[in-house]
Structure formats: C-alpha cells, structure tokens
C-alpha cells in the first residue's frame, strides 16, 4: 500500500466500480486502470516476462513497461493491455498476468534466481538460439515446453471476439500526429486555412505534457489555453479530432494508419488516413535510468509520477525520492512537496543542477544529493528504501553507500523524442548530443517534425515551431494557415541532461524492463560478437516488447557504444517499424469475418438451387451446386443417379461461372488466330469452335468455345478458374503486345446466366420450352449458334457439349435467367429432367475424356493431352515458338490416359502415384499420377484420368495407382481417355 487519492486532478466526481483479479475497487471517471489501481493502493500489478519479477505501474503513458494487464473476460478479453492507456469503465474486469498463484507470490520467480546464480543460463541473452542447438531430441520434450510455460505474456482468449471492428478510410490535407501543445497549435493553425485536418492522439485527454502540470490557481490560464484550443478544434468543421487513436505507422503515399478505441456499438476503428502533409508532434518519452532493481514496483518515471498526482489526483506514495541526471525531474519533487507529500531525497548524478533548482529544494526542505546515484532499489516486493552513493568523477565507481527511506522512487534519464513516424518515412534518426537522444534531423518528404518530437522541449518554442510547420505545409498546398494564441506561460525546455547510461551497482539492472533484458545481457551480447544495434536487438530481444523500445532503445545502444569504445552516433539506432504500439487484430479483420470473410459471387439461379436442396461447394468465388440429393441419398448415390440420368434422358446444370468475353473490332478474327492455337478467322458467322490457348512458354493455358456473332464480333467462353486471368491476359495483349490491332474486349460474364441442357432428350426439352426456335439438325447443327428471345428476354443458344451427349448451352439475360431455367425445367418434366451439379459435370466429362483444370495444371503440353494435331501449321500463335522444345515433345513425357479399376468397385484416389510394382516403396520409379476420378455408371466401374510416362503407347497395360498417405494401392488397366462414345456419335444426334 503506497498510492492513495490526493486531490481531484482533472477527473470527474462520478465513482465507478471495477474489479482487479475479482476484487471490487472504486475509480473516478477519467481514471485509467493504472491510476485507479494506484489509488486503491495496488503496488504489484503483475509479473515480468522471463523472470517473473513483480512489476507495478511505471508511467502514465504509452511507454508503460510494468503494468500490463488483461482487460475484460471471455471473448472480449484483451491481453497485455497497458494499464496506463485503458480508461476505467463501469464494471470493467481487470486481471493481472503471468502470476501463479498470485501477483504477490509467484512460483516462477525462481527463473530470476537461476539467471543470477548461473550467468548465461536459461534466459540470458541469446537463449532462443543457445537452447535450441543441442540435442534435437530435447527440443520438444524439454526446451519448448519449458520456455513456453515460463515466457510469454498474457493468455489469448479461447473464444471468438464478439465485438465489431470497423475499417475507415479518411482523406485530409494536413495530418497532425500528437495532441500536445505543439500538435494542438499546428492543427488549429492549419485548420484556419480551410484545408482538412486530422489530429491523432492516443490519450483520452488532449494536452500532452500540459496534463503533467498541476491543475492549480497558478496554472489556471495555461489550463484555459488548453481547453480553448481543444474547443476551437472541436468546433472547426474541417478538423477531425481522433482521441484514443494510436497512429502506429506511416506508409508510402503519406498514408497513416491508426487504431482508435471508441465507446459504442463498435469497439475499435482501424483508420487509414491519406494525407498530403504530415506534422509529427508525437512528443518525447522519458527514459529510465539503469540501476539495481530499477524494475521494482514503485520505481516510476518522474513524469509519470507527476501526471498521476496532477492529472489523476493520485499520489503514488507517501514518501517519494527522485533520481535524475537532468532538470526536468525536479518539478516532480517540487509538485509532490507542494502537495504536502514528503520528498525524502533528490539524487542528482550531476555535479551542480543550477542555483534555481538548488534553491527550490532548499526552500521546500528537500535533501539534495548531487554527484550521487541510486545504486539499488530496496524492498521485499516493492520499494521501501533506496541505497544511494557518491559517484566518482569518472562515473566508474561509487562510494559512501547509504540508505534513504521512501516508498516511491521517481527517476528520469532524459527525454527520447518519438521519431518513429519520421523513421517510417525512410530517414534514419540522427543523434543530438544536446538532449542525449536521437532526433529526426533530415525530414522525410511532406513531413514536419516539431516540438519535443524534434528535441525542442520548451513550451513556447515548440508551439512556435509547430505553427511554422503548419504555415509551411499549408502554403505548399496553396492555403494560408492562421495564427494561434501562444500559451500564456512558458516552460523552459532545457533539461541540461548529462548522460548516465548505467550505474555501477548490484542487482538486476534492467534496460528493457518489458522483455527482462538487463545491462548484463547487452554486455554479454557484445562479448559474444553481436555488436551491431540490429544484431543486439535480435540477440537479446531488446525493444521487441509492446513498448517497442521506447524506453530501452537509447540506453541499450549507449551501453553497447561504451563496450565498443565508440560514440553513440557511430553505433547508430535500429530503424523503427510499424506498428509502433500494440494494435488489435480485430481492427485489421474489420468486418471481414463470418459471411463477410470473402465476398461470395452468386449466379442468377442461386435461390432456385437453395430451394431445390442443393449441396454447395466452393468454386472460385462462387458457391456452386455440388449435387441435388434426394431423400436418403449420399453424395455418391446422388451423382451416380444424376450422371446416369443425363446419359439416358436429360439434365440441366448451372454453368454461369464460365467466363464470357465479347471480342469486337475489325481485327477480332486476327486477334483470335494469335491467341488460340487453332484457326478462328475461318469460323463462319453463327458457328462455335472449341479453342485452346498456350502460354508463351508452350504450356497449355486455357480452353473453351468461341462463337462468331458477326464478322467483327465474337463471344468467347473460358473456364471458371481462368475467367479473370484470361480477360486480363487478352487486355494485356492488346495494350502492350499488339496495340496495332483494332480490337476491344469486354467481360459480359455477369450479363448472362448460363445453363447446360444435356442428354438424349435435350432437344425435345428445349423445343417444348422455346417453341419459336427451330432445333432441327438442319437449322441448328452441332456447334451452331442461335440468337432468340423468349417472353421479351434475350437468349443465346449454343449447341455444344461437355458431356458427350447431345447438349445445348443456354445463355439468358441474368435478370430473367431463373425464369428461363424454370421454363426448361417445366418443359422437361415430360422427359424427367433433373438438375445436376458439379460432381456429375465432372463424372460426365471424365467419362468423355475431356480435360479441365485438374489436368491443365500449368505443366501440360498439347502433346501430353493429345491435342497437338489441333495446332495450326498455317499461322503463328502464342506459344508456337517454344512448344516444340526438346523436353516438351519427348516421347517419355507423362501423357493423358484413361485408367480403369481392375476390380470395378474399387475407387482410385485422385493424387495417386502410378507405379508398376504393387509393393512399390518410397524410392520406386514414379511413372505418373492420377488427376481426376469418378464412378462411371455407364461402364459400371471406377475410372480415372491420369498422366503416365509414354502413356500413349501403353494402352492395355496393368499398373498400380498407389496412395501411400492412406496406404492404398489399386490395380488399374491403362485405357484410352475416351471411355464413352469415342467416335462422338451422340453429340451429332
């Protein structure tokens, strides 16, 4: 128990209930989880990543390294939330993490001792790499379980997140990242140009470091300035103020990405902002000092302790000590003292902090220890005292160790500008000796980095920088930014920091508190040769926790620079990557979950299929009927029935998913002659022809039929799978390869609903359905094309066949396609017409030996599928130059064959390997594979298509289809791929 309520800060009066590990607690509106926990006297909030050391609140902002909690329960649980960034809401459930059985008593904390006793053991630098080196047998048995159970933070929810996340696209001329005094001023100034402005801030309250200031009489005018500026921004119709919105990445084209938490029906918005100019006013983060047990609960950043008191009305302790190497932390001591809280010491590693600060301590009766350091925070679990000592002038040793009582140690190692957004823009940050940290330096295009983010900590100076940036940005866009009333008080930003990268001391000295990386780990990394900052980061995992190195980066590379005997500027810094803060996956998913996971493409007859009880299967973006089961039927029963029925009577199938492309222009026929292997310029108007396309490398690309509607107008169909790619390919040919051809292509896929009507009774059925059309062989022969109308709706009828039976394809205007389908079904009742699905479509074409995507898999040549005779010798076409390469015409290539089970009731698995030995082992000679299989009702046997080495000449041979995954081997006979009606009599009818 150290923290307690002290004054109102800027919070509301209303009381809210919340729970921490089930224990009921009270908070005020405006509290964060961190301020509420401190106000309730909670010191230990959780345990650390590797060593399970007790941890408490260390800050008041996004740099929080200690208080990581799980917010909410069940599907709403959000693990590893920073308690400093989560507002308390009524009834909020908060849980500690990494604790067993409780935060105060944790069994895994032995890990920390092991590390201390055996330096370089289980969890020290590089432990990932070392532990996984030998012997392999121990990986799964020991290392992985040991590391998994010991390391890691929080537990992801096991059930789906019930909340809604939105993705929002915004556009603006000026985006301002950060809502402190500089950001507010920049946004207000820019807004007066009339250009659109978006302002992001990750906190609930705008004001940045102004919120650290006491909400007192003396600061009333400053507080009023903040309130007025915020109100003016809210009032401006061209400004969008996004609070609780963490801007986590900057991408090409000046795109900023942010996750915004909102109260309401939506939990978070993932916002993408396309900006023309970006003003980065992201502020600076206070650095911790590196001394013994600097991660102990109640060791806090000085600015964090100050904001807890002044903004949240929460004193962090009853007796506070301050440890600093710069001026800024003195204000924390003074504010606590002025609030009536005892300050037991200010420990300053510098020789002389200046008369004003010396006097400030003296007048308040605060003991000041200059040229001194804190060597170690003491206390069983949380801080109860500190050991301080005199620092030798060379900084290498200490003397005169002594104890000072306190229950909070507020420390400050200087300020680190938040340069991540600028770094994403491509510019490496540069080291600024004055503030002992990296700044943006050379600005990325369209970027202005201002205020503390650029190393300017002064209030008035930062504001004036921001307004200058706003004016410059607006001027480049042709606008005029306005002036903004300056803050009525100044805060001198000079911190007069004298670097103190680490203290010669005992105990664990944490550099990356979140990832339990110590100063010793950095030194060990150097010793083992991982000396570049990028290697250091990966070897030690430093900066990889969810604060992304905000607090640890500068300290770590300074220690490395010391080890290497080079300057920090020479050591350099790692580049920052997005996201710079933890962001929820929910935001990225947005609404693309459940039925919105992927758009579904629907054919016009979709509802009819649903009502008919079809079972659907995904085919590209479509859901297509797989089969239409009757009562009690299995999938096999259904497709065998449908297949037999089409061969004996008539069936109808939805083939809307075929690609449909109209090709027009005076050179349309020439164009088709180039993309197809066979001739289309000779095709007569009113006729259709089957065509095959090759890729430039001579491999088969796609097939389909193309009809000639007029001399200069063709209608192409493609396979379902290649509908989009073929369209894009044709456009590319016309735009790039042959711009001289006068041809236009356009997709008409969605204009037409398509249905195949197949079977011996197909002609009778269609004659009954559409009496105005003459379906006689003379008027409408095989490969004929007829345009017709029915009930005022347009149709195109093609007499083509995929099944091998007499068949037609009916293309009906999509708005009327279901009516046409129903008309055919009604007319077909006399012939027992059945709808059939993809399974039967497949069975029919396998029986006929037609190839589809399963065969045309991007490795197959014309010869492999016995189509080499189709290739025209009279003209050039795509693929002609390369199709006859030696390897592509070799007689031993796997060639398309039919396969028939020797035992007709034994299925052949698709994907089987073709071998000649029934007991073939893994090293056997693999002679081919099975690409498609079905049961053929016509033959009363399982049959398959496959590719067999030299297969053309092996008809009649008996071989084996082996499927080692399932331990299945089937004896098959090699046959022609034309199982049914090999002479094509039926289609001619």
């Amino acid at each position, binding site marked *: 128990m150290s923290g307690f309520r002290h004054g109102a800060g800027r919070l509301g009066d209303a009381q809210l209930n919340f729970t921490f590990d089930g224990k009921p607690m009270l908070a005020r509106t405006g509290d964060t989880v961190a301020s509420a926990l401190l106000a309730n006297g909670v010191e230990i909030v959780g345990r650390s990543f590797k060593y399970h050391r007790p941890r408490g609140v260390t800050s008041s902002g996004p740099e929080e390294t200690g208080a990581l909690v799980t917010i909410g329960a069940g599907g709403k649980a959000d693990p590893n939330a920073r308690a400093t960034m989560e507002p308390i809401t009524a009834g909020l459930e908060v849980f500690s993490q990494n604790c067993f059985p409780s935060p105060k008593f944790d069994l895994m904390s032995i890990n920390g001792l092991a590390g201390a006793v055996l330096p370089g053991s289980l969890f020290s630098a590089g432990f990932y790499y070392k532990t996984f080196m030998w012997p392999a047998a121990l990986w799964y048995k020991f290392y992985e379980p040991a590391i998994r159970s010991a390391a890691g933070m929080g537990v992801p929810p096991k059930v789906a997140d019930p909340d809604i996340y939105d993705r929002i696209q915004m556009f603006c001329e000026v985006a301002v990242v950060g809502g402190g005094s500089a950001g507010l001023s920049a946004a207000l100034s820019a807004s007066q140009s009339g250009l659109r402005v978006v302002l992001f801030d990750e906190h609930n309250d705008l004001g940045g470091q102004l919120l650290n200031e006491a909400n007192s009489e003396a600061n009333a005018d400053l507080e009023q300035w903040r309130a007025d500026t915020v109100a003016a921004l809210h009032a401006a119709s061209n400004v969008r103020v996004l609070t609780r919105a963490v801007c986590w990445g900057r991408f090409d084209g000046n795109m900023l990405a942010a996750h915004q938490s909102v109260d309401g029906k939506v939990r978070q918005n993932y916002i993408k902002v396309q900006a023309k100019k970006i003003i980065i006013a992201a502020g600076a983060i206070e650095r911790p000092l590196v001394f013994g047990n600097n991660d102990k609960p109640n060791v806090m950043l000085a600015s964090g302790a100050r904001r807890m008191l002044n903004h949240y009305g929460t004193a962090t302790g009853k007796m506070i000590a301050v440890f600093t190497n710069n001026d800024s932390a003195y204000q924390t001591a003074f504010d606590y003292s002025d609030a009536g809280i005892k300050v037991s010491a200010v420990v300053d590693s510098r020789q002389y902090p200046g008369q004003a600060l010396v006097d400030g301590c003296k007048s308040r009766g605060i003991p000041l220890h200059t040229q001194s350091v804190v060597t170690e925070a003491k206390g069983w679990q949380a801080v109860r005292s500190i050991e301080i000592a005199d620092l030798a002038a060379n900084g290498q040793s200490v003397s005169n160790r002594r104890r000072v009582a306190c229950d909070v140690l507020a420390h400050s190692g200087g300020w680190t500008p938040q340069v991540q957004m600028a770094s994403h823009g491509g510019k490496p940050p540069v080291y600024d000796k004055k503030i002992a940290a990296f700044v943006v330096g050379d600005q990325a295009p369209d970027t202005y980095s201002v205020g503390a983010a650029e190393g300017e900590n002064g209030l008035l100076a930062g504001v004036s920088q921001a307004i200058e940036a706003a004016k410059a940005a607006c001027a480049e866009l042709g606008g005029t930014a306005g002036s903004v009333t300056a803050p009525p008080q100044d805060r001198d930003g000079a911190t007069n920091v004298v670097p103190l990268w680490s203290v010669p001391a005992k105990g664990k000295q944490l550099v990356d508190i979140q990832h339990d990386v110590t100063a010793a780990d950095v030194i060990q990394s150097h010793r083992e040769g991982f000396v570049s900052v990028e290697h250091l980061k990966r070897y030690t995992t430093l900066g990889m926790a969810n604060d992304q190195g905000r607090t640890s980066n500068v300290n770590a590379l300074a220690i490395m620079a010391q080890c290497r005997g080079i300057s920090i500027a020479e050591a350099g810094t790692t580049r920052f990557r997005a996201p710079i803060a933890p962001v929820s996956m929910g935001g990225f998913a947005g609404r693309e979950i459940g039925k919105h996971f992927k758009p*579904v493409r629907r054919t016009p007859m979709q509802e009819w299929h649903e009502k008919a009880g079809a079972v659907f299967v995904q085919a590209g973006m479509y859901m297509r009927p797989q089969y239409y089961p009757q009562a009690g039927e299995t999938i096999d029963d259904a497709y065998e029935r449908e297949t037999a029925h089409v061969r004996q009577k008539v069936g109808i199938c939805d083939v809307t998913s075929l690609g449909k492309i109209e090709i027009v222009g005076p050179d349309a026929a020439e164009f088709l002659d180039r993309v197809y292997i066979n001739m289309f310029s000779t095709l007569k108007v009113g006729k259709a022809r089957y065509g095959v396309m090759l890729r430039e490398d001579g491999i088969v690309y796609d097939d389909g039929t193309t009809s000639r509607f007029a001399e200069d107008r063709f209608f192409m169909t493609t396979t379902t799978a290649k509908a989009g790619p073929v369209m894009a390919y044709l456009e590319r040919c016309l735009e790039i390869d042959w711009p001289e051809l006068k041809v236009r292509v356009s997709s008409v896929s969605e204009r037409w609903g398509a249905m195949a009507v197949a079977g011996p009774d197909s002609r009778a059925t269609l004659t009954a359905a559409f009496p105005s059309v003459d379906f006689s062989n003379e008027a409408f022969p095989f490969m004929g094309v007829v345009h017709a109308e029915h009930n005022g709706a347009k149709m195109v009828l093609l007499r083509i066949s995929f099944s091998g039976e007499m068949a037609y394809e009916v293309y009906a205007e999509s708005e009327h396609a279901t009516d046409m389908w129903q008309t055919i079904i009604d007319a077909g009742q006399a012939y027992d017409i059945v709808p059939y699905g993809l399974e039967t479509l497949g069975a029919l074409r396998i029986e006929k030996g037609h190839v589809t995507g399963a065969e045309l898999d991007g490795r197959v040549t014309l010869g492999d599928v016995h189509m080499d005779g189709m290739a025209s010798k009279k003209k050039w076409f795509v693929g002609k130059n390369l199709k006859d390469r030696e390897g592509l015409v070799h007689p031993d290539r796997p060639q398309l064959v039919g396969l028939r089970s020797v035992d007709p009731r034994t299925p052949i698995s698709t994907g089987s390997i073709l071998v000649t030995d029934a007991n073939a082992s893994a090293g056997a000679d693999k002679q081919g594979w099975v690409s498609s299989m079905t049961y053929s009702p016509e033959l009363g046997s399982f049959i398959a298509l496959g590719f067999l080495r030299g297969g053309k000449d092996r008809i009649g041979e008996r071989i084996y289809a082996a499927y080692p995954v399932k331990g299945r081997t089937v004896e098959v006979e090699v046959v022609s791929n034309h199982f049914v009606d090999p002479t094509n009599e039926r289609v001619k009818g």
Partner: protein
Amino acid sequence: MANALNGHFEMPQTFAAVSIDVTATNMWQLEGCENVDAKVATMTGMAIPAQGQVTVQGDERLVWAGRDRYLLTTNRSDLADNDGVYATDQTYGKTQLLITGEDARALLSRGLPLDIDEGQFAIGEVQHSHINHIGVSVIRNNDVSGQPQFEVWVMRGFAKSLTDFLVHSAHTLR
C-alpha cells in the same frame, strides 16, 4: 420469379441516416478503336463526358469508363454496332445501389478508398474503385432532399455480398 437482390433498405434512424436502393440496370457499352468520341456522340446524340465525368440528357446518361469506352444507361434495347462504334449490351450485368442520406459518406468510408468528401467529388463525377474487395463504379448524383446520393454499380453476382456488407456496416454508424 422476382429478383431477390433488388429492394429498399432503410436503416433505423438510431443506426444511421442512410438508405440503400438496389435495382438492376439497363446499360450499353459503347467503344471503338478510331474517332470514338465523335462517333459515339453521333450515335447517342449526347455530349462526350470528359475523364471521370457523366453526361446527363433526359433519362439517359453517358458515363466515362476508360479510354475510348463509355457506358450508356438507357431504356433502348435496339442499339447495334455501327460505323466503328461497337455497342455491347451490358443490361443486367451490373446492379445499381443508390446510397442516400446524411450518413452516406460515412457508410462508404467503411470500404471505399476514394476521397468523396464534400468538395472533392462533385455531382456528375464518376470513379472506378472497389469496396471490400468488390469492384465498383461510383457516381455522385444530385442531392436528394438536401442530402448526398451516391450511385454504386457492382457486378451483379456480387450485389448481394456488397449490399449485405453495407447494410451490416450501416447498423453501427451511430
């Protein structure tokens, strides 16, 4: 059988001030290879819209759809290839969603990566883009009762997916 895609979707005011009207379209694609603008103007009797623009004349609109290509929304069904202008009937190929109301922009911002803020996308302009992975064309229509209206064309097969997505998104705008 009625087209199950079509309909009027009005959100309760507590959810959003926006309505979505879904209907089939009557549309021809006019294109060619030479002197297309002059020939299309002759064929339609309409002024040729500049890039990103729409020409309105009576019940008909001529919409820019890429180089030497226009879409004519019309009730005519008798257009034919003529003098190097190729008239391809695209009727019913696209479905039209009229998105109207105070929250129309907010709704579209949930998926459309286009700048349609006031002053950025004028009445009579068209852009071709996508919403939630679905290709669309968007036209800014005349305001209706003082509120903006956007006309979205989508391939018919995706109309239901897109409508579902927009209706779902509209439920949480307020």
